[in-house]
């Protein structure tokens, strides 16, 4: 205890503040600028508010497919030239898709800001969506699925949990979607999806790094004002019935030698304070070698090769997932019994003052590292605006974490992490069809 209070003298707030300015273009595009002149680098990114949850249930995989398709070319960027232009100007770029949103970005030496703005504007104004691009990316996406999911041990874990945990919400399908759906989709369907979601009034543009704001605004206006406003996106609300009875499922994965046991609970949107409390619970349970579950189940009792607990939190709902790989001689039930005991302990006893202080240190450390480079800051600014509706959370989110009490932790554990609210999934190896 003495050491703990001594360390506290170091002070509470020390993390830097992220300065930014924001405004809208007439077509509804939201623009956020963050200047940081410490290195000659700029990041330009666009986040579109479209993810796999916006898809037609008969056409899943579209959002991720567009992550690929929108690199195929534009009216002024020939097919295949996108990557070449980026490289030829010393930059790099990529994109990623979640159930909620799609994110595209480029990083360049600072003398290429105009180029970066032009490229993202091209992608928004007039991407070329034709059959050649669709056919090529269809094959590429299939290979991505084989590589990342079908040929990887435990690759179908998240998809399988989601499939079991959501009955009506579109979170029930995998982000990568169904290959059959993609095969069946027509070019017109892809074009309609683009027209519906990839519009300025469903997106945010972020520019971060070493640039002159007046010049940047001029270029943003010059290139992005040409993009017409789209029909505002209306979103359907999907309500899941609460889970009140425990249920089980089994999944066979031919790549798996050691079975894994998984439990999953449905939790609220990442926008809620409760979601943040659940993050702290994960840290108490499995964050670091002194965390409760790791120390007891992996270190002391040696019952599991791995144990993990995390809050997979998204815009509409979250999932609290606990997983363990039993060591030889122990069963899934043995491991889960111990894991459950730790959850019960959280629900009945307050965590110690010292554990609480440890959480505060971790929060600060995480905060600093999540804003430690311009790429990270750019993505955080985009997410906070688009998904949370408050850019300023980049500076104030840490205050929400700091406002969480030991009692909050106990109450949230009681509210969401009960045995009758969960799925137990046995994720096991498939019996060999062919001999090895």
């Amino acid at each position, binding site marked *: 205890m003495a*050491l*703990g209070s001594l*360390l506290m003298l*170091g002070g509470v707030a*020390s993390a830097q503040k992220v300065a930014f300015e924001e405004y809208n273009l007439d077509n509804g595009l939201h623009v956020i600028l963050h200047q940081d002149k410490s*290195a*000659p*680098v700029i990041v330009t990114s666009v986040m579109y508010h479209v993810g796999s949850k916006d898809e037609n249930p008969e056409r899943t995989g579209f959002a991720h497919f567009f992550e690929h398709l929108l690199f195929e070319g534009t*009216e*002024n960027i020939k097919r*295949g030239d996108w990557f070449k232009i*980026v*490289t*030829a100007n*010393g930059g*790099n770029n990529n994109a990623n898709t979640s159930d909620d949103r799609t994110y595209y970005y480029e*990083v360049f*030496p600072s*003398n290429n*800001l*105009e*180029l970066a703005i032009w490229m993202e*504007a091209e992608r928004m*104004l007039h991407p070329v969506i*034709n*059959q*050649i691009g669709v*056919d*090529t*990316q269809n*094959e590429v996406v299939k*290979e991505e699925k*084989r*590589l*990342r999911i079908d*040929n990887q041990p435990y690759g179908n874990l998240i998809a399988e949990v989601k499939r079991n945990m959501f009955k009506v919400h579109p979170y029930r399908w995998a982000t990568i979607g169904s290959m059959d759906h993609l*095969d069946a989709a027509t070019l017109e369907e892809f074009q309609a999806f683009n027209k519906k979601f990839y519009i300025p009034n469903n997106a945010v543009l972020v520019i971060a790094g*070493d640039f002159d704001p007046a010049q940047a605004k001029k270029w943003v206006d010059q290139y992005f004002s040409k993009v017409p406003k789209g029909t505002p996106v209306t979103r359907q609300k999907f309500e899941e019935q609460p889970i009140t009875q425990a249920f089980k499922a089994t999944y066979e994965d031919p*790549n*798996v*030698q050691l079975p894994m046991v998984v439990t999953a609970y449905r939790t609220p949107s990442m926008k809620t304070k409760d979601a943040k409390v659940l993050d702290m619970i994960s840290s108490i349970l499995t964050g*670091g070698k*002194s965390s409760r579950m790791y*120390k007891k189940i992996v*270190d002391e009792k040696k019952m599991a*090769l791995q144990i993990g607990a995390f809050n997979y939190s998204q815009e509409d709902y979250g999932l609290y997932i606990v997983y363990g*790989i039993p*060591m*030889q001689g122990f069963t899934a039930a043995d491991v889960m019994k111990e894991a459950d005991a730790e959850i019960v302990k959280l629900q009945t006893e307050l965590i110690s003052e*010292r554990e609480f202080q*440890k959480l505060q*240190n971790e929060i600060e*450390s995480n905060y*600093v590292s999540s804003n*430690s*480079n311009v790429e990270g800051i750019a993505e955080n600014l985009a997410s906070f605006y688009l998904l949370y509706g408050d850019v300023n959370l980049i500076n104030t989110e840490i205050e929400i974490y700091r406002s969480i009490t030991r009692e909050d932790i106990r109450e949230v554990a009681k509210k969401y992490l009960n045995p009758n609210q969960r799925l137990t999934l046995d994720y096991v190896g*498939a019996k*060999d*069809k*062919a001999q090895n």
Partner: protein
Amino acid sequence: MKKVIYILAGVLLSFNMHGQVIPQPKPGPAPKVNVGKPETFSLKNGLKVLVVENHKLPTVSYTLTMDNAPYAEGAKKGVSDMTAALMGSGTKKMPKDAFNEEVDFLGASIGFGSQSAHGSGLSKYSNRILELMADGALNPVFTQEEFDKQKAQIIEGLKSDEKSASAIAGRVGGVLVFGKNHPAGEYLSEETLNNVTLSDVQANYNTYFVPGNAYLVVVGDVKVKDVKKQVEKLFGSWKPAIAPNVSYSDPKDVQYTQINFVDVPNAVQSEISVVNVSNLKMTDKDYFATLLANQILGGGGEGRLFLNLREAHGWTYGAYSSIRGGKYVSDFSSSTSVRNTVTDSAVVEIFNELKKIRTDLVSEEDLKNAKAKYVGSFVMNMEKPGTVARYALTTQTQGLPADFYENYIKNINAVTAEDIRRAANRFFSVENARVVIVGKAADVLPGLESRKMPIFYFDKYGNPTEKPVAKKAVPAGVTAKTVLDNYIKSIGGEKAAKGVKSIYTKSNATVQGAPVVLTSKVTSDNKQAVELTVMGNSMMKQVVNEKGAYRMGQGQKEEVKGEELAELKASAVPFEELTMANSKDAAVTGIEAINGSDAYSVKKGDTTYYYDVKSGYKVAESRDQEIAPGQKTTIFTYYGDYKDVKGIKVPHNIIMNVGIELNLTVSEVKINEGVTPADFQ
């Protein structure tokens, strides 16, 4: 429908550009880059310290590394893994739990390797983080209890990777390229781990965790003066010693290019790696040229391998090449993971790209782009505070001239197209390469065997083995007749099948963006007409009638004669199984997996028919075909999605692979209607 050869690869749709022309902006003046130098000092025991002050963020990081020569662990392979696993589990001053608890409490991260240590966190805890890291690094306690636990976990970890194709590929690649007894080729197994004892771990630590060639790099929100004081206090007593330097004979490339194949029956993709040994040093006069050659060949999403295998063919998610400069022997490799059916084609394309970069000069544009990428990453790396320290460390450990990084951009820009071709010839092998392929033999071997490259077989640990037997034994009592009869039964029975006088089907597909329509008409009196149209134009037509058979395409007509005509005629019926069942030429040859399900293979002539063991349906046909003189390939046609049409089950999905994949969806089926004698003229 089958035995149709199409010439579709050239069918491309052109698209019109319309809309606004907005020209690509030009870059502004290049930003200036200053490569700074860290503050450095040394301790008497040999430890060298490099400090970069950077106060932008309230964080600090410490990295301790030892530039010791690599060594082979031999029969005790795993001793260094065990040392790494045991480091950090308690010190002479602190028990493990207290140590871990304090690290977590600080929100810090501290970790150890067998010859390294790392600590990072908020700079307000900088002193304590370094104290903990130094304590863990210099005063470790190794106990039997912890030893047993970590060993059990490493063994379980090995098991969890047992079926992973990529883990197998990594292990086997090392063994084959460097040899089992080389530091870069030996691998960890349960057997070698069982030879390691606690005292081996202690000895390993004493021998290799020494300050003689050690470097401590400090980056972040700290003052050099304070760091110096603290490092002297914490590391001054580290006992001086230098790790042994054993030399190993360099591995040799194979005498001729060959495939080294490992069968992993659960693989849905093949891991392909074309490898040769490389001795590229960072001081080599062709170092920068080699980096750029590798960049152009396979450095990223704009590299030739990626553009060829992914963008042009859609065979893979990615394809890259890699080479590193360094003072120890290493390798050059071109790697990709592709779906099973295109494994052999992918190998051919990788070699095409290797040959091209060794033969042709790269274009000015390719050269300019590759340089821009290297210069750009160099500039952007300056954002990371650790870069300056990393450059200084590399300059020392690799024996580089002091101005290596100052001249980096200049030297990159000086490379010419001739330099690149020379470097590619020196470091990228075509004649002496190993093609390491880990994949499912049953799916990929027939294709690979057709490519005329010698194939050697290895097990999952790189030991030579026999060619895998893909086929399973057929149960007693199963004959061609039972399989074929069962097929007829499963599609509706003999009576229904014999009642079919004609079948008309129309199916659709897209090939390289063009919609393709295939119509097929076939009658029970051995007449057939198959036509392929692309956007309404006939591309290919094949007709079998009472007079003979012909093929028409691209304005040319060709009569079919001899043996081929006889075969065509025999198969120009709605269900050839009706007659085949009683033919002496048809025989069951085994059970093979077709798209993951077991199927009986029935061979007749050059054609093999596959019938699902469970459903009885015909799921595939394959045919050996000569595509060029002396070059044979196997063309597969897959059937699926059987649906009922007038009491007969007809496949509604047909996939053919003839270099390009034709995925046909059947949109219309007519039985005993829609066919007239005029169709077969």
